[in-house]
């Protein structure tokens, strides 16, 4: 039993008091970040990444901390969805549909506990799936050459672009912007500098961390300034918290189905947690039919999206670890972290760095249990955080961003660049252009270009080489469908409107 041996290796690393402490801290911070409206898992992880460098964490510890934050944020997103009718993060959008009505009925505590349990089930099953499937997927990597990788990156752009906005053209613009930024720096294939304007600081290209923190966190501050700091207030009262056993038992099959759907959605590169919760909710809604009471506070309507989005979070780690291709926005940020730590995710990660992979899997299991304990009995503590006024919160976030980025590179140039990206993020959001494809472009654009140019070197410039294997052709078809399908299905799959009182 290789898996058991590997898992015990993992637990021997993850159960050290220090890593365990990091997991608990990560879960706690993650839940808060997830609960805070606007601060989702991807910006949460992005903001905290510089901290791992400041603290001088080694690769395993840094990864444990960040994935705990990641899982924690997936749990936490539901809190503000249920209590404020504002999704704490993008994947928690679907939880508002039934969570808020249920809270309105005076069952806020029940809704929080039920969704916490559903999150646990989804994340737990996904981690098991990651454990069983990832080594198998890792073997597939020898089948991936330049042509296949190019098609895979294309697929990521097409599907994520399709989900991140209702407008394909805007997603495409955002992707192109990211690709353009990715071109800055020394060209790997000729050694010549591109778009650097002779500035030595730009020779290595633009650090994606600078771009991520700028686009998410700094842009958030600009929006805050614009709105003159309207505070957040809780509209629903939370009295006592009991465990609604009846609802949990009634939704057990819903949780299992939603976990499966979410996990599969998570594995698809680019689809991610939002798609997972969306598909889980929609499939349960159609199974329940009109009498299911979905949209009016049905327990199944809370369990399904929460199990779905947490399962997707685990599923998204599979392609990130085995192929080096992120399955969601947050794993894109985690990928950046890995690359900065000199770990190349990919087929050889499981053989090269078993301690990193299995330590990570073990700590995910631990984080999950910690999160269940944290989110069920201690849910009141997190509710308090929502009462911290934004004018205290955001300046703190800004300061952390500046100190973090400066400690990373020691260069004032990166700080200017970060503010520049903040302004860009502000403008993009004003124009309703999604920022996630921009990040994806910066992160993967260089790789996509490299794959294309390697394919051209190997084939002496023959474009047909890109369609030379069944895998490549399959990925091309999936990419084209992923980009085109939402245009035709928009009428059917329109993002649900928020419940109004």
């Amino acid at each position, binding site marked *: 039993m290789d898996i058991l041996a590997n898992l015990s290796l993992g637990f021997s690393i993850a159960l050290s008091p220090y890593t365990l402490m990091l997991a608990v801290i990560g879960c706690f911070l993650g839940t808060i970040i997830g609960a805070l409206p606007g601060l989702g898992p991807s910006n949460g992880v992005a903001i905290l990444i510089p901290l791992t460098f*400041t603290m001088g964490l080694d690769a395993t510890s840094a990864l444990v901390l960040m994935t705990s934050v990641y899982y924690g944020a997936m749990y936490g997103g539901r809190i503000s969805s249920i209590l404020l009718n504002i999704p704490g993060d993008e994947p928690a959008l679907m939880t508002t549909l039934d969570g808020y009505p249920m809270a309105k009925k005076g069952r806020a505590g029940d809704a929080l506990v039920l969704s916490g349990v559903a999150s646990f089930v989804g994340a737990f099953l996904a981690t098991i799936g990651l454990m069983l499937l990832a080594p198998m997927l890792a073997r597939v990597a020898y*089948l991936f050459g*330049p042509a296949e990788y190019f098609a895979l990156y294309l697929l990521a752009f097409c599907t994520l672009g399709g989900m991140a906005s209702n407008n394909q053209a805007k997603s495409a613009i955002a992707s192109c912007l990211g690709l353009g930024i990715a071109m800055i720096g020394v060209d790997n294939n000729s050694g010549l500098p591109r778009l650097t304007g002779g500035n030595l*600081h730009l020779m290595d290209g633009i650090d994606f961390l600078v771009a991520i923190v700028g686009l998410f966190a700094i842009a958030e501050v600009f929006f805050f300034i614009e709105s003159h700091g309207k505070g957040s207030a809780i509209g629903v009262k939370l009295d006592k918290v009991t465990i609604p056993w009846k609802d949990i038992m009634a939704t057990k099959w819903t949780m299992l189905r939603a976990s499966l759907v979410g996990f599969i959605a998570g594995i698809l590169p680019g689809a991610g947690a939002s798609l997972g919760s969306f598909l889980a909710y929609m499939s349960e809604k159609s199974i329940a039919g009109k009498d299911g009471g979905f949209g009016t506070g049905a327990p199944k309507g809370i369990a399904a999206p929460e199990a779905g989005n947490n399962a997707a979070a685990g599923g998204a780690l599979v392609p990130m670890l085995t192929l080096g291709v992120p399955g969601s926005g947050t794993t894109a940020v985690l990928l950046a972290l890995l690359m900065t730590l000199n770990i190349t995710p990919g087929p050889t990660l499981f053989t090269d760095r078993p301690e990193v992979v299995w330590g990570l899997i073990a700590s995910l299991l631990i984080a999950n249990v910690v999160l269940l304990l944290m989110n069920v009995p201690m849910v009141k503590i997190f509710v308090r955080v929502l009462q911290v006024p934004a004018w205290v919160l955001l300046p703190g976030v800004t300061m952390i961003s500046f100190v973090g980025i400066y400690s990373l590179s020691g*260069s004032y140039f990166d700080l200017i660049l970060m503010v520049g990206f903040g302004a860009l993020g502000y403008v993009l959001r004003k124009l309703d252009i999604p920022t996630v494809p921009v990040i994806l472009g910066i992160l993967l654009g260089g790789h996509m270009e490299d794959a294309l140019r390697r394919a051209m070197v190997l084939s002496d410039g023959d474009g047909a080489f890109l369609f030379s294997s069944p895998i490549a052709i399959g990925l091309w078809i999936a990419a084209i469908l992923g980009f085109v399908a939402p245009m035709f299905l928009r009428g059917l799959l329109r993002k649900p409107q928020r419940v109004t009182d």
Partner: protein
Amino acid sequence: MKTLTMKAFVTSAVLALGTGGAATAAECIAPANPGGGWDFTCRQIGKIMFDIGAVDKPIQVTNMAGAGGGLAYNHVVNERGDDADLIVAASSATSTRLAQNAYAGMTADKVRFVGAIGADPGVIVVAANSPFKSLGDLVDAIKADPGSVAFAGGSAVGGFDHLKPLMILQRAGFTDITKVKYIGVDGGADAITQTVGGFTQAMTGDMSEIVGFLKAGEIRALAVLTDERVPGFEQIPTAKEQGFDVVAVNWRGLYVPKGVSDDTFNMWADRLQKVADSDEWKAAMAANGLAPFTKVGGDFQSYVDGLVAEVNQLSKDIGVIQ
């Protein structure tokens, strides 16, 4: 969030104190982020110099990442031209980039190369099921049809990994080297994956990159590019004994500013020699897959000059530079 803010505060305060307090000690600039090869060079050499008493104060390590070492090079040439207390980590990548004019017009003669004390030997490997059994087989196949063999390596086009097979081919009398296919991927492991997967026919890289795959039996090493077979890997023949006189290693060493006196230069060379002779350094080399490679002082400066000239000519031949 408040605890986070506090942590950030405290950390930056500690960092500020650290820098201020050590102003009088010697400084080693690692022209890359913490964790890479240059960082390793600075931290290990600095630590051992202090431990064996070659310097009387701990050496302060500064990370100055940017432009593949170009930022640090410019900084040293323009602002620290006569600083006797400054050493900078360097490797084959430094001399290759200098030879290719990749440091914004800076040339190799603007600093003094003081010594190298360890190297990662270059290797040429193929998949375990490859028809190529020796370096000669591979070279013959390329001579017959240059397009039939593609190399994968961890450095960019024109980088050191790319140049290794080209040097071998030149020695073998093959001059049409622009026809040789090479793809630069993200590190040695990735290059091996591409080769085992059959997308490329051979991989060019460093010994430290192939050890894991060699043990797993997935690849066959055709040649190691050193003078003698490498201890611990005696089964791998050198290119030299197969009739291709190429030595290409990724050396780890230091340079100092141009303006220092000969005494200072010799003092650093002497200190470096002491590190090379120490047991601590031998242990550090073994732990990081480095082979012994000691050249210090004027001997090393002429080695680097020769290397820069050779790489410069080769780069012109393949069209990386004009």
